[in-house]
């Protein structure tokens, strides 16, 4: 098992290397640079800036220079937020994004599983149709609609919760709901489908034939199997949630890292974009590994050695 984890982590190195390389050159193919302004800088100033940030060197040299720094754990300075290094920016923002994303993930799992189970157990009843309708709504309504509407209702009209900003648990509620809503919907749908299948399976028939109480039939013999598709969905979903959302962070004014990805790309803040890409890639790799390990823990037929 440990061997398997080590093997997977070793295998992640070439993956990350490819992602970094691809992102690095793709960024540079985009026209423009970090110091382009509406009013062009003086030639001398621009030259100095380019020299300081090594942008005057050939591209391959810049690439190896970046890799060299990266190997020492240095993500470089931000080209735009010039008083900060990329480490500082991400280091300040990541805890915010992880808190929000983690809460949203938890809500999605708990509420989604519960709704999915209820819908499956009451298949084709009004409860089932209700859950399906809510799920469809959750998936179709985009977060840039949900976020301002929630902010308006609970923040402005009812004044129950902060309409935006970061500080204290109450400021997390609306962003977490916004982030969790589509995930709740997806999890509920996945659980409903796999639960219906599990309840029809032969071994559940055996459990019923042996007079096991309903809570054991559902909790022990159906839910574990029904979780498996959710687990495989949650890998990429968790990585996406924990690395922040530009829409939610912008609308609620939160200091997460989701916005850096978009802002960085628009500003050609090369190092900041690379930093976010690396973080997201690492999260994806780690969560896929966690998913595979969870799978093995849940299903004894899956074994790694």
């Amino acid at each position: 098992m440990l061997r398997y984890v080590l093997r997977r982590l070793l295998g992640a190195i070439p993956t990350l290397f490819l992602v970094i390389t691809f992102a690095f050159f793709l960024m540079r193919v985009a026209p423009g640079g970090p110091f382009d302004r509406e009013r062009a800088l003086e030639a001398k100033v621009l030259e100095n800036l380019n020299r300081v940030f090594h942008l005057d060197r050939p591209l391959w040299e810049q690439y190896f220079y970046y890799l060299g720094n990266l190997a020492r754990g240095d993500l470089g300075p931000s080209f735009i937020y010039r008083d900060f290094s990329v480490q500082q920016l991400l280091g300040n923002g990541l805890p915010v994004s992880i808190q929000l994303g983690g809460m949203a993930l938890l809500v999605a799992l708990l509420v989604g599983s519960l709704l999915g189970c209820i819908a499956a157990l009451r298949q084709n009843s009004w409860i089932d149709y209700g859950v399906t309708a809510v799920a469809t709504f959750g998936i179709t309504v985009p977060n840039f609609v949900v976020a301002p509407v929630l902010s308006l209702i609970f923040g402005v009209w009812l004044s129950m919760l902060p309409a935006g900003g970061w500080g204290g648990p109450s400021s997390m509620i609306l962003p977490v709901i916004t982030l969790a809503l589509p995930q709740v919907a997806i999890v509920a749908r996945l659980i409903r489908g796999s639960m219906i299948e599990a309840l029809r399976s032969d071994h559940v028939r055996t459990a019923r034939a042996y007079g096991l109480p309903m809570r054991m039939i559902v909790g022990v013999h159906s839910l574990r199997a029904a979780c498996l598709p959710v687990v495989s969905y949650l890998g990429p979903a968790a990585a996406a949630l924990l690395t922040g959302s530009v829409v939610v962070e912008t609308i609620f004014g939160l200091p997460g890292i989701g916005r850096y990805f978009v802002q960085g790309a628009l500003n050609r803040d090369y190092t900041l974009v690379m930093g976010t890409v690396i973080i997201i890639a690492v999260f994806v790799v780690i969560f896929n590994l966690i998913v595979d390990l969870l799978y093995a823990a849940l299903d004894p037929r899956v074994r790694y050695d």
Partner: protein
Amino acid sequence: MTDTSETIFDIRDIRVTFATPDGAVEAVRGVDMNVKAGETVAVVGESGSGKSQIMMAAMGLLASNGRVEGSVTYRGQELIGMPREKLNRIRGAKVTMIFQEPMTSLDPLYTIERQISEPLRVHGGLSASAARARALELLKLVHIPDPERRLKSYPHELSGGQRQRVMIAMALANDPDLLIADEPTTALDVTIQAEILGLLAELQKKLGTSILFITHDLTIVEAFADRVYVMQHGNVVEEGKTEDIFQRPTRDYTKMLLAAEPEGSKPPVPDTAPILLDANDVSVTFSMPSGFLSPRFELKAVQNVTLSLREGQTIGIVGESGSGKSTLGRALLQLLPSEGRVVYQGTPIQGFDRAAMRPYRRNLQMVFQDPFGSLSPRMTVGDIITEGLLVHEPQMTRREREEAATQALREVGLEPAVRNRFPHEFSGGQRQRIAIARAVVLKPTVIVLDEPTSALDRSVQKQIIALLRDIQARYRLSYIFISHDLAVVKALSDYTIVMRTGRVVEEGPTGDVFRAPASEYTRDLMEAAFNLKKVLSRQASARA
């Protein structure tokens, strides 16, 4: 047992209806049955006779669209309409069940110990350690080798026979009065079937449990049951003591079932008949490629098999599951990579890729076991049959193809008008006819038949066998007939090869192999298939 024994399970005028989009379907139409203490009762019937649904209804296990009327009493308590909590105190404790599918009836995610323990803890209120001790005792009772280790095993680590033993252990855990066994050996090989039936007989003698045995297989009934109910279309058509039914059946349906064992034999072809397909030293190895830091894993599915198929000949390949017989069939037709030499009418075809094989495909056809899975559900029967012609006879006009399909359907005994219908509208036997028509329309010389009759009822099987014989005689076809069913192979082939774990155990003219099997393995196989009664009584006397 005497007739004065107490009746413990009494079914009165039970009716089961299923609501379907096409209206209500009556699966069981008023059936009376009873089981006395210590008795073994068999319910026999073909698929769709409603025999399983009676038990499902009695135990509250009907699908959600099913409805039951009538009465089922266990020791005077009415089970139909009993609240679930109350019913749960009876099922799994006093009345238990084992099912047909040993592969799926156990939960794949939990250990054997946990699954045997659950009913013990729920019904008997046993502590975890007491349940564990009892589970171990039960595994010993059902003769599972290495029971301590097996407690920790998961279902997928056990063979089909062992899983069925685990199911039996679970069924006996709370000392039930009645064990309902729904086709418990149908998915197992004949030798394993004999072992499981022997075990049930032994346990019944030891524990005095009544057994209600549902089966389609009359051989089992004859060897195993005291009394039998014969069912057809949701009704009991005949009932009585097993000897009486077997010696003096009164109803035509029962007579037909009793006579449904495949009959006849095939005379060998003369040695002068030309050899069509010549296979030399064919081996198939499945391997998992070595991954990053993991070694290569190999499974030798077929090892050095040699055979020559002559014109008009039928070679029967017999073996239990895992013997490599289907793999061999596919390897001969180059449907999977193999080693060795395969020559078709003078041309070596081994290793041919898809394109190189194409001209030979029309001559080398295949019919598969599962008539439900092997026909595309979204194509009409006509399209399914003529699809091969599009590839092999591209110059044919639409009209000519239609004519060929009509002709092929007539050959297999179906109305040409069924061309425009879809596979799901047909029964298993009809689908297998369609699959045969699909092969025959190309006018092949060799057909590999992979368990073509195994999913069918005996009476339908008999018709398919007659059809295969008829087509063979008409077109001088050669068959490779793969089956685990010795009776069918005996009736249809003139040369028999017995395989086990990828190797040929024995081969020879069918008459010789069946009359005087040379190897012990073949003898065991034959006895388990044709003389179950003897096997069971020998097992019983060995225990005594």
